[in-house]
């Protein structure tokens, strides 16, 4: 099976895409990512700016009209959603297969 070459997503990109399920601007993305990751992923401004630029270029997020002239608003695109879901399924498969093997081992060891 041919897999999208953008997979697997980095933790940072995964959380940014997730944070952009609802349209918002840069600083709120930082706060949402920190919240969603239970404080595990903290993005600094320069790193987030580069990530946003890259995601825009690849078309996984898009800019939407903003009422605030100083802050651009972004939202995940349709291809971005597909990609995020594909990575979710990839990880889900890993979790399932791991728990299956672990359970089998535990039964054998009993």
């Amino acid at each position, binding site marked *: 099976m041919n897999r999208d070459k953008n997979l697997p997503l980095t933790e*940072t990109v995964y959380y940014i895409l997730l944070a952009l399920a609802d349209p918002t601007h840069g600083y709120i993305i930082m706060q949402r990512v920190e919240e969603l990751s239970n404080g595990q992923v903290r993005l*600094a401004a320069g790193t987030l700016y580069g990530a946003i630029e890259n995601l825009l270029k690849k078309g996984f997020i898009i800019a939407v009209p903003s009422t605030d002239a100083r802050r651009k608003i972004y939202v995940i695109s349709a291809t971005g959603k597909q990609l995020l879901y594909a990575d979710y399924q990839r990880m889900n498969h890993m979790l399932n297969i791991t728990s299956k093997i672990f359970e089998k081992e535990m039964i054998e060891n009993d």
Partner: protein
Amino acid sequence: MTKFKFFADFDKEEKWLGKMAEQGYQLKRVFLCYKFNSTQPERAIFKIDYRTFKNDQDFLDYCTLFEDSGWQHIAGTKQSGSQYFKKTGPEGDADIFSDLSSRAGRYKRLSYMWLSLSTAWLPLLIIMLTSDWIRIGGFLNPKTLYYTPGLWEMEGLNFWRHFLFETPFALFRGFLVFFWIAIVLLYAFSAIKSWWLYRKTLNENI
């Protein structure tokens, strides 16, 4: 106060700006040189990003994102490349980058800028080397740099008049090409140096 200094390494430049602030010199502007305001000495953290922007809107959005997260934009313009930030409060992030690839990325963009400058000067250099309005070996035999017919047979005032008139052109023919080569090599060297810093930063451990 004005200071002339050149840094290839952003980390060293950031530390130097911190030292200047400790001595009471606050960075105000950077264009060919560093301009400082005299202020109260203070401990401050400075960080530098390297980016250029297509329009004012993008630049404003960029500066606002940094301001929102505790970094004041103190120097740099839409097209200047180097963007200087100063930490505004005790809370907030200690750096403007949170991973190695983005920390290193600024050197990659800087390297591409030097490379494009170097290649921009290259075509004219090739034209100079292949056309005959420039003489590479001319400085070995300066007489050949003078094109005025019969100049070396002239005498007295007539000779000096023609000689001095043509001297600037002769210098241009003989030495401009070396100046040009130096510029291209300097840019190429800077591109390599930045690329080296890019690779080095990527391999660092936080």
